[in-house]
């Protein structure tokens, strides 16, 4: 290491040091790496850097020159330290950019999945139907699936050998004490329970499994229905119609056209089929509505007075209406599922597609 004996030497050395520093830090950043930058820092501002040595060497100068010389060294030291700070920031930014530039990920690799499960589409559809009804004041209730002849048929105005029993193929269980027991063929049995066990006035919705002895592309033995019942004084068809239009408008999220068509169910009189304007073609006619412009969604009617009588309600004081529909079909049309049975095979990728809803 060079040293000095007189002020002029020091001045020369300092000038030389300044120029060396400028050269070292003025080179292109590309030529540097972390080790070389550390070398530069140590060389110009480390404990053993020439500036430190020269500070120590001040003692060798005559006392009257020391102060001036010390100021000169310190001036350069300050310059180097502040410039070095700038240089290091610049270098670190450069080095980080260079590192990040090399770290780009392959966007086309398979996405790691977020491990949610999914609700069953029919459960989703059930919720979609029940919620507007709850807002409209219908209490969501439940009932048994294994039913006696009384609740499934008798109380619903379907006496033994009535032609209406032909409409539904029933699963029979063994009989006990002269009563036939069946798997309920419609959720209407819950109406009978509610009328007998909860009393009137009544405003309920029930959804659940029902069973019929049929199995093909469009029929499965175990399916779900939803059904509503209102019983109060002075209830009539006009009230039913209003309730239906509010309900379907809520379900489809906008006002929908509704059509009632006379039909027959043993538990209601008069009875009607509920048609809703096809949501695919808006009435123009398409494949999903078989070119009729309408989708048959369910049945409705005024509660048959025999049902009220059987359930201990005075039909001369109280009246009511009921409506119901199959949920599986609504789920099929909402989720564009063509084979009903696909909903029951438990295929993971298929079911997962329905998400948490």
């Amino acid at each position, binding site marked *: 290491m060079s040293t000095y004996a007189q002020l002029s030497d020091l001045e020369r050395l300092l000038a030389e040091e300044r120029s060396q520093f400028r050269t070292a830090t003025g080179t292109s950043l590309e030529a540097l790496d972390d080790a070389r930058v550390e070398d530069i820092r140590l060389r110009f501002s480390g404990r053993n850097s020439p500036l430190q040595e020269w500070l120590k060497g001040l003692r060798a100068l005559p006392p009257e020159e020391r102060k001036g010389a010390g100021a000169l060294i310190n001036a350069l030291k300050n310059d180097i330290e502040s410039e070095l700070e700038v240089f290091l920031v610049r270098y670190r930014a450069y080095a980080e950019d260079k590192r990040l530039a090399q770290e780009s990920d392959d966007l086309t690799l398979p996405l790691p999945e977020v491990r949610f499960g999914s609700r069953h589409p029919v459960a989703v559809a059930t919720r979609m139907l029940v919620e507007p009804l709850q807002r409209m004041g219908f209490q969501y209730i439940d009932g048994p699936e294994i039913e006696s002849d009384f609740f499934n048929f008798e109380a619903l105005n379907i006496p033994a050998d009535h032609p209406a029993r032909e409409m539904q193929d029933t699963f029979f269980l063994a009989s006990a004490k002269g009563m036939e027991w069946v798997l309920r063929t419609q959720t209407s049995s819950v109406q009978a329970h509610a009328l007998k066990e909860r009393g009137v006035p009544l405003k309920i919705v029930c959804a659940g*499994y029902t069973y019929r002895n049929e199995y093909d592309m469009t029929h499965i033995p175990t399916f779900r229905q939803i059904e509503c019942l209102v019983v109060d004084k002075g209830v009539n068809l006009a009230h039913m119609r209003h309730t239906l239009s509010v309900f379907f408008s809520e379900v489809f999220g906008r006002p929908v056209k509704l059509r009632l068509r*006379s039909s027959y169910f043993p538990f209601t009189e008069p009875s009607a089929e509920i048609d809703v304007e096809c949501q695919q073609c808006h009435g123009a006619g398409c494949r999903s509505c078989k070119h009729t412009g309408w989708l048959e969604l369910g049945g409705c009617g005024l509660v048959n007075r025999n049902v009220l009588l059987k359930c201990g309600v005075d039909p001369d004081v109280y009246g009511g209406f009921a409506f119901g529909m199959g949920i599986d079909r609504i789920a099929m049309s909402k989720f564009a599922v063509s084979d009903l049975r696909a909903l029951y095979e438990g295929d993971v990728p298929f079911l997962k597609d329905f998400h948490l809803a």
Partner: protein
Amino acid sequence: MLASLKFVERFVTLPRVLSEARTAGGKAFERYDFDLGVLAPLLTRQGFEVESVRIHGEPFDRVVVGRIEKAEPHPKAEKLQVCQVNVGESVLRQIVCGARNARVGLYVAAALPGASLPGGMEIKEAKLRDVESRGMLCSREELGLPVNAETDGDGIWELHVAASCGLPEEHLARLVGVPVFDALALRDTLLELNVTPNRPDVLCHEGVAREIFVGLGFLGLPAQWKTPSFAPRFSASETSVLTDACTRTSVEVGGRTLQATNRLGVSAFFGAVEGVRVVPSPGWLRATLEALGQNAINNVVDASNYVLLAYGQPSHAFDVAKLKGTLTLRAAKEGEVFLALDGKERVLVDTDCVVADDASPQALLGVIGGDLSKVDASTTALVLEFANPHPVAVRRSSRRHGRKTDSSFAFEKGIDVAARFAALCELVGLITETSPVAPTWKGAFGSKISEERDPAGVSFVDDKEMAKTFGPSLGAGCAVDPSVTAVKDCGAHFATAGWLAWSEARSARFACVWNASDLMRVAGAELIDFDKQIWLLGALGFGMQAPFLAGAVGGQTGAGAQAAAQSAGAVRVSFPHWRWHDVSGVADLAEEIVRVVGIDKVPSIPLEGATVAAKDDGHLAALEALAARAAAIGYTEISGYHFMKVDDLERLGLEHVCALGEPLALMNPIIRDQPLMHTTLVPNLLRCAQRNTSFGVKRGLLFHCTRTYQNFDVEGTRVFPSNGEGIGLEARLGELSAAVAASPRGLASLGLADYAPQSAFPYSREPSLALRPAETPRLAGIAFGPREEKQWNNAGPQGWTLLEIASHALECAASLGVTLRLETLGSSHPFAPALHPGRRAAILSDSGAPVGWVGEFHPATLRKFEVTEVTFGFELNLTNLLKEVDLVPRGGGASVGVAAAHEAGTSNVSSGGSGSATTKKRVVAPLRFPAVSRDFAFLLSESVTAGELAAVVKESLTGAAASGVRSLSQVPANLVDIRVFDVFRGKGVPEGHKSVAFNVTVEPCERTLTEKDINWLQARVVESVKERFGGDLRGG
């Protein structure tokens, strides 16, 4: 119901519209079809949905009337003729024809090029053996029409033959070039109507016509009712037939005395006719039947079919000469052979009802006649049977023998018994009309009720019940109607006479008063004026009287009554006999009016009173919360049919089919090998896993949340003693079920074990749930295959562990705010054999109630279900879980305090479905000082469990092992967690030992902890572990 509008037009005028106008054969051709634009919506609106429309004859537009002007032999083919045919064109058309009856002057059906015939034949200009042929002369068969060899021959259709639906030649001459179906007036419109089961009266053409008549009248369109009756051709009157049937027991016919005995107790009478000439039916009758897809046989059989199609009145004609001895209505003998009209031999059983002569059955009652006594060309004397068999008997015989006829269909749906005598008059009238010589009426006679009664036909329900339901269609019903007992006592003619009195009593009873305000009450609007309402009911056949008018004693009828009714605002309405099946009061009349006006015309009026948003019954919200949580933590919800196979539980490795409680058996399962209602959700889940793995989906989490069922009620009483009957499982289920109850491991002896029927859910609020089969809601989940597959961002596939799956089950319960815990699952648990013996656990509530299990499935179980991947599962009994949040009363089972539970349920759970009932977990406060965390590792003996270690550490810090205590004894801090994070065996660890590393986290509650505090904490942990387990600190 297939309705021919041409047939309907016999009863009522129908609107027609010009559907086509063009030039055909050089002449203007106009075609008027029935106006479906009016008729179809009308029928649909009134409740008879038009399911399809078909035009009879439409495909044959290019098959026209032609006349053969010239016929020469084909130069090269002996059997062919070259015909020059006039089809109304300017030149004759050359057509080569192979039929022998092709001859000059014959009017024929000529198919022109472009026509397409049934069977897909396309007519083109072609060369036949080098001779050009520009069309084809058709036979009836080639046009899809039935052929009767006797009248039609075997060649081409000769259009001038009346019995082949033809026309006289002078008419045909004007129709050359006109499409054949139009020329012969065969074109028809056929509607397939959906007739609801309450309206059997619309299963005939008169019924359809009546609906159309009312509909057109209501719309203000012209409609004229016609009475196309043949009864005037008949010498006797309805009254005399009725009287005969009630008073006579035999008749002289065909040179002998014919009698009938009735051992069935169904009402039945007969008519006898002599001097009949059996010939082919006239063209109009044949065409009517053929349009509806039926074959014409002869004038007698066709007349019977016509009366059925027109009025819905089935009957059967026997050839008297072919009957031996007395006619008997009786039950068939087991194994008796019956040769039916369709030529098939059927072996009968003793619940079939037949009409037999002394030798053998001659008809399967209500279903089909016999071949031995059928009416054919040789017949001269007839006996016409009008019986009213029981609908169910007919339905069962018809199904049993695989033969559904128009007659059996009519009986099944219910016939109008009041019109039986009128129907006989129509039938004889039509036979008279179609016979070359008028036959002689020999009178009607009733069937003699035998003292002996065969049980057949009435073995299903008791007589009383049947009579209530079907009334007059069952003669035996008379016995319950007091007004009829007298008739019964008078003996011999019970069946018919009793029926008559019954129907009279009924007609008096079938009436009600209709008020002007009634429609308002039902529909919320008047819809139409009162006088229009009355008109409408009248047009449907209802009778009107105005009984409340001063001076109108006895009631007025007709127009006078109508006027009077209008001013009174009320009218007495009697129901027509064809509506006795379904009309019983004011509500039915309102329905009639609403139906014809259109229920769609009802206005929309909001319900009165404020609407308050309602909520779920408590348990429904809880189930929703559970399922939502299961889905949120990664499980996919499946749905199933709730059935199981007889050997499903054995396949799981369980002892037998009743190991989880006795399953309910279906008497008529639809999926043959799944006749039982499931008692666990696991087999179906494993099948789903199997399906997924076999389709290449090698990992997944599935859950199912639904009910399971048992043949026990909630008190543990067996419900159906004959469970399994009809499918041959009765003995086996009974035996095994009893064995379970008796064994010390029995479900009942487990008290509230998760598969005991005592944990059924009270779905019904009946006062007692005794003898109601148990329905228990369950949540089951399975995890098949690895947790992670090998992917670019991991080191390789990783399997699930028992504790991970257990935490899933516990996390589901946490959605209700319930904390559950794990315990060893003993081998006495009914599900234990299905699980890995070292990787299974019982899930219990805090109070120790069994809620379910979790475990890895035993490899043997997985092999039986053909699941190739390692699979874990859990199943929770949700009733026991709901008890923890007071949605079901605890202890004593569901039968106690059902109502109280429901009250609690509805008030405790919010409608949001979050299931936040009685939350037990304290809410953690946000940290105010930095938490302190220290790791320790000890060398411990293998026998020390993580749970024991944690308890000791906890006690050392808090001074108590109780679960609720959190505050540290010496330092102002709370214990947050003691968590084992590593268990190591192997290098550096002596045999029989393990290195257990754990972490202790505390949360200061007053100030930041000092060095001294932390030293105390470390020292306490190290000392206590050393003291208690002799464990050496390895680091920390």
